[in-house]
């Protein structure tokens, strides 16, 4: 499984480049070098996977998302000083306030899953950005599917 993830993220990075005129942020999608410290945020982002994706107007976690979140939970339990904020995001094809509510719902779905996997709730907060912070900038489903996301962002400790 761990071998598959970098490949999947590599494909996503290509998708981003193909539909975006701006250089996407690559911190979370670049394949990780072999030398990464397993307790580092870079390792979490690249090897564990910092994000899950949702269907249109949905906040349910599919099999792939649940798999990612189980790895996130295990990592968080292995690194008990880490705290995180779960960001909920929506694509651009909705109204602003509804998308804020939808982002909150998605962030909550991620947080609840991690808590159910044993991560102490006090280490996880959540925030919605609605449709305000897209990462993939094309106006097509190939980008929208990447923007409908829940991202687990470490809020403490070393950032590399």
């Amino acid at each position, binding site marked *: 499984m761990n071998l598959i993830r970098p490949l999947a993220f590599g494909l996503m990075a290509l998708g981003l480049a193909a539909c975006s005129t701006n250089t996407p942020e690559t911190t979370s999608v670049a394949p990780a070098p072999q030398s990464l410290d397993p307790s580092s945020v870079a390792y979490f982002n690249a090897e564990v996977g910092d994000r899950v994706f949702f269907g249109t107007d949905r906040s349910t976690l599919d099999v792939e998302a649940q798999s990612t979140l189980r790895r996130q939970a295990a990592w968080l339990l292995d690194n008990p000083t880490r705290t995180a904020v779960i960001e909920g995001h929506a694509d651009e094809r909705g*109204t602003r*306030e*509804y998308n804020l*509510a939808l982002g909150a719902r998605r962030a909550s779905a991620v947080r609840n899953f991690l808590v159910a996997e044993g991560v102490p709730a006090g280490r996880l907060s959540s*925030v919605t950005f609605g449709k*305000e912070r897209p*990462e993939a900038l094309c106006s097509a489903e190939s980008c929208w599917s990447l923007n409908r996301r829940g991202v687990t962002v470490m809020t403490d400790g070393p950032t590399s």
Partner: protein
Amino acid sequence: MTTARRHSGARLRAAAGAAALIFAAFGAAAWGILPAPAAAQEPLRIEITEGVIEPMPIALPEFAPGAGAEGIAQEVRAVIAADLTGSGLFRVIDPNAYLAPGGSVDARPAFENWRVINAEALGVGELGYGDDGRLSARFQLWDVFGGQPLGQGIALRAAPGDARRIAHKIADQIHLALTGEPGYFDSRVAFVAESGPKNAREKRIAIMDQDGANVRYITDGRSLALTPRFSPTGESLVYISWATGVPKVVIHDLRAQRSEVLGSFPFMSFAPRFSPDGGRVLMSLSDGGNTDIFEMTLASRSLRRLTSGPAIETAPSYSPDGTQIVFESDAGGAQQLYVMPAGGGTATRISFGDGRYGTPVWSPRGDLIAFTKMLGGRFHIGVMRTDGSQERLLTASWLDEAPTWAPNGRVLMFFREGPGAASAPQVWRVDATGRNLRRAAMPGAASDPSWSALLP
């Protein structure tokens, strides 16, 4: 359809007094003209309910300037002309066609000079400085073909910095005299000023005059801020800010220039809107992913829950009489519009067409609800009766969103954005009839317009 229809029995309402602008009416008796009996001549009148196809031609000669006031008199006249033309209801005839200057406000015009160029109405004004250095303006509107004054003349006094407001007040008076309804020119618009790339866009709260002048930024752009809404008096804004890390409703006092997060609860809050009396703020709170509508009483900061249940309930807006609230909910599986009593209670769904409906806003006239409709990959601004009947879509584009009503309930602003990484939102306006769709005058890319009430 004729542009100007004459109706008997129309009467001007006296202009209200004001603190900032001293605003007085002076009668037609000043010219030694007695008002004609109502039946003898029907007043000039334009009907705006069904949409004006042909704007009414108006002559607006340069204002007679007092000493040293030549430049400012020209500016005031130009602002009035821009207001009238932008409304789509009026056409200011090119001054090059005028056969005579406007002359004195205290003189009866030579109407034949204005009939020749087919001006239906003639506005004559003068502007100068008083002994105290304040601006002093007088204005009278005339029915050219009826040969009569249209309502009482008005006199305004204001600080020199308020010259544009004098112009907007006069334009509002012309709107009232010729349509029978108040205008919307002396008003402001709050908005989100947007700049930078789409994935890291700076979004600042700002306010401006409705015609794009006097832009003032309220937030500095360091944190994301959205959805400004004016209080009924225009003295405060509510908006949401991520300054604390999560979205929180903030109230901003425009005079004191002071901001404060509303509420100390641990939830995200958004979708704020004032009650018609200004004493309460509706907002959505998100608790564990569930979004419901609450109301905060500003005096006590007490919070009252208005909806419950696992669905998203957000975007609340009061009816102008304060008895009902329209909002959106996905309780039925997708975003739809509902109306509930103020204070909460049984909600009645009012949107039943295809597609999804959001961002409902009750008209200040009380007769219509404006909304965003999403259907088949297109976004529309539309209006419907408050029971959901007579739905009409006014616009269509890749993204049209977030209508706001002009204070007279006859015009809407909203924002429009195109697809792609390079797109940026722009504020547009359209009459509630669907006519006169055009870009609003704005300082740049902008979204979330909120139209204030008429200024005092």
